[in-house]
């Protein structure tokens, strides 16, 4: 098979794709929380991913402990989520616009935080960058392996926590808010608080992905967040189309796999000679459009089959 052969010959490319896929599954879960659980198209994730990345790069290059820097980055992402939620619930701004406002503002804030278009993380010994992955490298793991191992641990822990949280009374109220705000109010729940809490959670997760991403590639740049929302949606939709998850925890697992599959497709597409790395967003858009029209396609193929069969009979 062409695909298998490709990945066999490009072990490093594949390893990179898998680790990016795992890191970005955190972002995709954030997008899932907003788009699917809350049923609110939240575009502020484009802002929170670079907030997370930029904040981490700046703090770590300034000498802060990478774990503490990552934690602070998550909080900054949550703050962005709070802004969107506040604009939407308290100031009654339509959700898409609220997200766009936060996103636009975040670009300015990130520039202030970073102080430059591009911030590298500090060198740490020969050919090494300080990051949350460094301690595993000190234990003797190769950098790619350290990245994959820690990312897997983070994803497992975060999704387990997320699963438990969504099973609490509070989480259950958030899920219901996405379903039917009117009913939730009738049960005595303040939907504004649920919406704000969910957006803080979702943007915090996106910022965590941004933070790990910057530490994985060794730098943060102002423009790295563009297109995040579509990548997140691509992963969620791939997960839904392939696995059709019915429960919350199966959705989470499907999203991790969907996110990895997305990265593998991208790696495969970019390996074709005339493709450039700047085509990535075009490819992503095509994948999302394709995945979104799959149900329609399926119907039409079924109709076509039936048509051909009927013609065969007469």
């Amino acid at each position, binding site marked *: 098979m062409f695909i298998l052969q490709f990945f066999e010959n490009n072990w490093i490319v594949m390893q990179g794709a898998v680790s990016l896929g795992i890191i970005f599954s955190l972002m995709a879960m954030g997008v899932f929380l907003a788009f699917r659980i809350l049923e609110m198209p939240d575009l502020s994730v484009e802002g929170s991913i670079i907030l997370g990345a930029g904040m981490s790069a700046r703090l770590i290059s300034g000498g802060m402990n990478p774990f503490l820097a990552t934690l602070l980055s998550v909080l900054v992402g949550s703050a962005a989520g709070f802004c969107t939620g506040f604009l939407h619930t308290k100031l009654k701004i339509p959700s898409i616009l609220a997200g766009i406002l936060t996103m636009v503002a975040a670009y300015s804030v990130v520039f202030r935080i970073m102080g430059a278009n591009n911030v590298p993380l500090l060198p740490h010994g020969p050919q090494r960058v300080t990051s949350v992955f460094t301690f595993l490298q000190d234990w003797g793991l190769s950098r790619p392996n350290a990245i994959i191992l820690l990312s897997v641990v983070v994803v497992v822990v975060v999704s387990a926590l997320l699963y438990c949280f969504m099973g609490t009374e509070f989480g259950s109220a958030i899920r*219901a808010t996405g379903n*039917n705000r009117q009913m*939730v109010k009738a*049960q005595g*729940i303040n939907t504004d608080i649920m919406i704000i809490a969910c957006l803080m959670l979702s943007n915090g997760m996106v910022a965590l992905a941004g933070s790990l991403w910057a530490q994985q590639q060794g730098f943060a740049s102002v423009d790295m967040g563009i297109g995040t929302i579509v990548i997140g949606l691509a992963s969620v939709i791939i997960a839904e189309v392939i696995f059709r998850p019915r429960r919350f925890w199966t959705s989470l697992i499907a999203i991790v796999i969907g996110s990895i599959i997305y990265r593998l497709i991208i790696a495969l597409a970019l390996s074709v000679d005339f493709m450039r790395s700047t085509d990535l967003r075009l490819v992503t858009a095509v994948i999302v459009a394709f995945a979104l029209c799959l149900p329609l396609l399926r119907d039409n193929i079924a109709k076509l089959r039936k048509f051909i069969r009927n013609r065969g009979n007469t």
Partner: protein
Amino acid sequence: MLTLAGIKKTFDPGTPIEKHALHGVSLHLEKGDYVTVIGGNGAGKSTLLNTIAGTFFPDEGKITVDAVDVTNLHEHKRALYLGRVFQDPRAGTAADMFIEENLALAYRRGKSRTLRWHITAKERAMYRERLATLGLGLENRLTDKVGLLSGGQRQALSLLMATLREPRVLLLDEHTAALDPKTAKTVLDLTNQLVHENNLTTLMVTHNMRDALKNGNRIIMMHEGNLILDVKGEEKTNLTVPDLLKMFETASGEEMASDRMLLT
């Protein structure tokens, strides 16, 4: 139990589409009163119930529930006192959540949502028992999504949810109108059963005059934002549909115009 004093509500005031929906409605319900509400399209019945529930605030007037002034309480704060079932079967439940999750949400009505698990084993047993009393077989479908249920099943579930924590006042806004006649009867029977068992103070809007006469101990009629009729007790028991029509004509000075009310 429930007192409305001079409730006024105008939609879109000062615009060409200004609409006086309630013109100073006053009403007092004793504990255990089961009041049916009738009136033509646009008479203000839903507006009345929504004002009680806090969907919007009245322009004037005061609402007290069990001696608590709730006039300025937000909808979610008032929910502590109120049980509601809407006309649209989809409105009262969360479709993508399990039956048991919906019940657990309702069981915590008016309580703060903590980080405890959303349901306990003890509750589950209680829900199964309560669902069994509906006679719809839902007791074996606790982990089915509510979206899979029929309109009647969803409405029965909504009723159960509204009464799971005993409400001071139960508000029913044409909750059988979207159902076929047979299902509507089942849901109405269930309503009577729940209301009588728990001696619930109830306001039930209906378009069906016969249902309005047959059920409850009191009937009120609305017309153009006013209460034009209020009959209770023995007098209500002896009332017939022709009586109602005649009373409507004398009270409003108009012929009964609503086809929906005459036909059903």
